[in-house]
């Protein structure tokens, strides 16, 4: 795990090139504190910061091929590198190192850009081909590792994080209003758009070929449903899923350093930890988050699992002040505004694990997308059920069942439950049907957009843009598959794997590994019958069946408890005082993004009593994080994070 950066294009002197590459890489040092390296050639430069996990002594980068024709700067892990190496060796390739980096060089030498199809891993890389004078960028299928690019003064630049690109003289951070609108609709910008105007991300599962005067961006993999669907006899699904998950976990334990595990207390991480424990002969260590507030805290379930497995588990209790204190630094790393505080405790957790000497962790993330675990899938099913009999007063009661942790929802009458979730019920063919209530709740926060922002966004509809990005076959998929696609393609890489994943983990040099996002498992899950995943209102049915004899009853049958953290209330104490000043009428007025008077009233409302509603909390956190973003990147007046001393 590492950081990469570089450029392609003439015009920089060797001294300028080296100086720029070094400053781009240095600003990403938190991703790779163990080593650094630069490569420059005619009109090209690659930089690398290394977090050494595989091939500790001989994996230095940028790495050149033996003949010097190829040069690679690579971030991530190729989990099947041993198998690929054996294949390549059997075809006559000779290796100089034990690293997975060299495997990519040999594969490319043999296959060209199509080599990415052979890789099972989480990666983002830049490969310079001197023979063709071509730079190739590539990113893993699910979007675990980030990669950004831009053009400036005729040159092409790339970096693992946007802050690397902001080191280029003449590039100034500017908030993209459409990205902000998308974040205030879906929680994330729609790739390739980023929060920074003029800076794009390479979308997941894409490669980019950059030559003089020519750029090609194309996907090499797609998430597809219903391919040979729905044919497996009873029982076989469970066996296949278990076998694939076991293997995905096994190869993700490959490392020359200790690999730990994040253990949340839910089904997914419990299952991964269970599968990993016997494969870690030196003993697996696990880490979890605890909260002072009982409604968010899952540490009792973490303890049940740790004790059952006999592993050493440590949890970090995140109080409100700790979350508030970490929030500004968290936004420096997410590089985009967020509508929830949830990334901050994960930021603290990665610091905690790193402080315990851990460099890589397994995570259960991804299971809810591929096996339909999220509430939104059940909610959509109930909404369709209600829409068939709109006059029914009984059917809306089901909404209570899927949100036992939302106290205000529990108090609603059936009429209101039906009204809240009834949005879009008259149009079940709408491709975004499943996500309409969430979008409606989130977009309410746009009420706080200032005049100028509203003017810029006049006529723009983020939902229309998302709908325009759907593949033609989308309409043929089952409604559950459609909902899964929306979650997996957009929210997963745009928010979950970035703001709650790579960015907050790498802030403290922690590599996260996701067995559920092994593409073999993703593809197998996409082929499953919808009712195998969501049976009635039982989410992740097939996974529960696969885990039946592996997990204690209270974990295996636990209904989905989404990871949540206390929201705006965390900023009400002493630790949040300096952040609250960012929401003052004067401060908001100076930034010019939000309505100063409305924001001041929101702040006052929160001071009278803690904000309870989703919209108010999303607005509070969204405005605050946008203001922090603004100061970090355009004013550069917020303190930036220092790498953790370990």
């Amino acid at each position, binding site marked *: 795990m590492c950081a990469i950066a570089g450029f392609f294009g003439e015009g920089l002197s060797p001294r300028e090139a080296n100086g720029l590459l070094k400053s781009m890489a240095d600003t990403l040092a938190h991703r790779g504190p163990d080593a650094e390296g630069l490569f420059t050639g005619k009109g090209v430069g690659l930089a690398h910061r290394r977090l050494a996990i595989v091939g500790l002594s001989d994996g230095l980068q940028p790495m050149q091929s033996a003949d010097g024709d190829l040069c690679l700067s690579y971030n991530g892990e190729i989990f099947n590198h041993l198998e690929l190496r054996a294949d390549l060796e059997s075809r006559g390739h000779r290796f100089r190192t034990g690293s997975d980096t060299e495997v990519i060089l040999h594969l490319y030498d043999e296959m060209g850009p199509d080599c990415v199809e052979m890789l099972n891993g989480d990666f983002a890389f830049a490969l310079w081909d001197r023979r063709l004078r071509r730079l190739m960028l590539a990113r893993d299928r699910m979007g675990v590792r980030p990669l950004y690019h831009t053009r400036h003064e005729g040159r092409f630049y790339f970096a693992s994080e946007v802050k690397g690109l902001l080191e280029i003289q003449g590039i100034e951070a500017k908030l993209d209003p459409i990205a902000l609108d998308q974040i205030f609709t879906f929680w994330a910008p729609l790739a390739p758009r980023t929060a920074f105007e003029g800076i794009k991300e390479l979308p997941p599962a894409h490669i980019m070929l950059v030559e003089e005067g020519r750029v090609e961006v194309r996907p090499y993999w797609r998430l597809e449903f219903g391919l040979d669907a729905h044919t497996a006899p009873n029982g076989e699904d469970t066996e296949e899923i278990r076998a694939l998950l076991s293997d995905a976990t096994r190869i993700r334990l490959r490392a020359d350093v200790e690999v730990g595990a994040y253990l949340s207390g839910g089904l997914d991480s419990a299952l991964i930890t269970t599968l990993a424990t016997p494969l870690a002969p030196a003993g697996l260590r696990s880490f979890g988050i605890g909260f002072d507030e009982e409604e968010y805290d899952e540490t009792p379930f973490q303890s049940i699992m740790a004790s059952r497995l006999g592993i050493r588990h440590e949890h970090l209790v995140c109080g409100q002040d700790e979350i508030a204190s970490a929030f500004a630094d968290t936004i420096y790393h997410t590089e985009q505004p967020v509508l929830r505080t949830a990334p901050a405790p994960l930021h603290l957790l990665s610091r905690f694990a790193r402080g315990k000497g851990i460099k890589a962790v397994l995570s259960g993330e991804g299971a809810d997308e591929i096996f339909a675990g999220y509430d939104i899938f059940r909610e959509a099913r109930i909404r369709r059920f209600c829409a068939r009999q709109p006059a029914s007063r009984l059917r809306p009661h089901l909404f209570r069942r899927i949100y036992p942790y939302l106290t205000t929802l529990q108090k609603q009458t059936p009429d209101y439950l039906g*009204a809240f979730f009834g949005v879009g019920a008259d149009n079940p063919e709408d491709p975004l049907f499943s996500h309409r209530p969430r979008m409606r709740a989130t977009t309410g926060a746009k009420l706080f957009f200032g005049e100028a922002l509203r003017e810029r966004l006049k006529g723009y509809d983020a939902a229309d843009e998302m709908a325009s990005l759907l593949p033609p076959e989308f309409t043929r998929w089952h409604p559950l598959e459609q909902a899964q696609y929306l979650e997996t393609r957009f929210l997963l890489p745009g928010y979950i794997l970035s703001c709650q994943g790579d960015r907050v983990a790498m802030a403290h040099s922690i590599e996260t590994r996701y067995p559920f996002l092994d593409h073999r498992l993703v593809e197998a899950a996409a082929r499953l019958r919808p009712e195998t995943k969501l049976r009635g209102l039982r989410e992740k049915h097939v996974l529960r069946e696969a885990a039946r004899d592996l997990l204690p009853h209270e974990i295996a049958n636990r209904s989905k408890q989404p990871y949540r953290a206390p929201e705006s209330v965390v900023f009400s104490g002493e630790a949040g005082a300096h952040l609250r000043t960012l929401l003052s009428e004067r401060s908001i007025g100076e930034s010019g993004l939000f309505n100063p008077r409305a924001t001041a009233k929101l702040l006052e409302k929160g001071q009278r009593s803690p904000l309870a509603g989703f919209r108010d909390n999303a607005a509070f956190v969204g405005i605050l994080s946008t203001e922090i973003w603004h100061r970090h990147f355009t004013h550069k007046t917020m303190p930036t994070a220092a790498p953790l001393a370990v």
Partner: protein
Amino acid sequence: MSSSTKAEIRVFIIENFLFGDETQAPGDEVSLIENDIVDSTGILELVAYLEEHFGIAIADPEIVPENFDNIARLAAFTDGKLRHGLAAKAS
């Protein structure tokens, strides 16, 4: 229906749910839910406001769109409660 009840409820809605943005103020008959002005928590905030501000008691079965969906219905419901309360006191 008392115009002052309606006006007071309107002020509360503008201040509490629209944060002072009068340009978004709904008409009397405009649905508060369908126009994303109140969410599930907002309904309970409305209940608390009506109880505390007008001194009425609201039972769970009364929290339905027929009484709460727009400003006109909220005012009519509140006035009805107030009249009923006065009548009860007078008797």
